[in-house]
């Protein structure tokens, strides 16, 4: 039966369209490009000086992204280990 197994394995290999390397490169690209779009680090001083503007910019971005009125987006923030954590709450109803 081992000879049948060999053919089966060969068949499975043929069915794979992408190599593991191509697949990994594609996943990596998707992960990293998405992260670069979202993550933005704001120095504490800059945040303290412009917190209301930043809060409004977050509301505006989310309301545009999800196509909802700005009143449905709530933004809160707090400091944690030296970083500013912005928490957003979107009401889709």
């Amino acid at each position, binding site marked *: 039966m081992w000879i049948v197994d060999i053919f089966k394995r060969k068949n499975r290999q043929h069915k794979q369209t992408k*190599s*593991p*390397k*191509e697949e*990994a*490169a594609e*996943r*990596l*690209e998707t*992960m*990293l490009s998405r*992260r670069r779009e979202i*993550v933005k*680090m704001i*120095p504490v001083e800059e945040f303290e000086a412009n917190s209301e503007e930043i809060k409004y910019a977050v509301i505006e971005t989310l309301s545009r992204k999800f196509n909802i009125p700005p009143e449905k987006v709530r933004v809160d923030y707090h400091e944690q*280990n*030296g970083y500013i954590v912005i928490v957003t709450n979107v009401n889709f109803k």
Partner: protein
Amino acid sequence: MADKPKVFVVTSGKGGVGKTTFTSNLGCTLAKMGERVCLLDADIGLKNLDVVLGLENRIIYTSFDVVNGTVSAKEALVKHKQLKNLYLLAASQVATKEMMAPEDMKRMVQEIYDDFDYILIDSPAGIERGFRNSVAPAEAAFIVTTPEIPAISDADRVIGLLENYGFTEDRMFIVLNKFKANMAKRGDMLDKNDVEKALAMRLIGVIPDSEEVIIATNKGIPAVLEDGVVIGKSFENIVRRIKGEDVPIDDDLKGVSKGFISSLLSMFKKR
């Protein structure tokens, strides 16, 4: 900050990529080339650099004693057994990372700054307090990654954090560790171009995956101190590159893929 950086942090984000092994081998390579080198273990609570260097029985004082004011940083240094210009400032196993602040690290490095040509700080995994402590006194960073998605993804995150700490691109050096040339050749693994493309940065070196590292680590002797090890060339090239020499990255993998005859010969050599 000096024109050429001399305080380097070795970081990665992800654990298990080989930061401590890289730090010890790079330190030994620099010391072999005649540089005065200090290795600083910043992985408080989970320290290993002393073990990799085979110095675990010689530790009397740690960085925690320096921060507490029990001894000076110079008094806490331990000299390497073979390389007389290589020193270790060990980390405490009983303290925690929270017991030290970035300012403490800066003061400690400042105290020994003029006595060394290179100071390498072995950072713990993660991006919390231990990472921030390690980065604080550094002038440049080695970001160690392996050719796997989680490691590259974490490296990307660390690059972003380092940028926020003010590190410019010319002060961040990506090291691709545990690279399996044969797998990459078969298309089963990401290769160095994929990593450069994903991180949008040039590599400073590629270190091939090697069994010699495991054997050497268990002996407490960094692999580059053994004769004829494959990774020795990669470390020499990395040193030449950080000193400003233009060494092609493909040089790091020369001699990695052995032919049938040389593989057979090396088997007999091992016996």
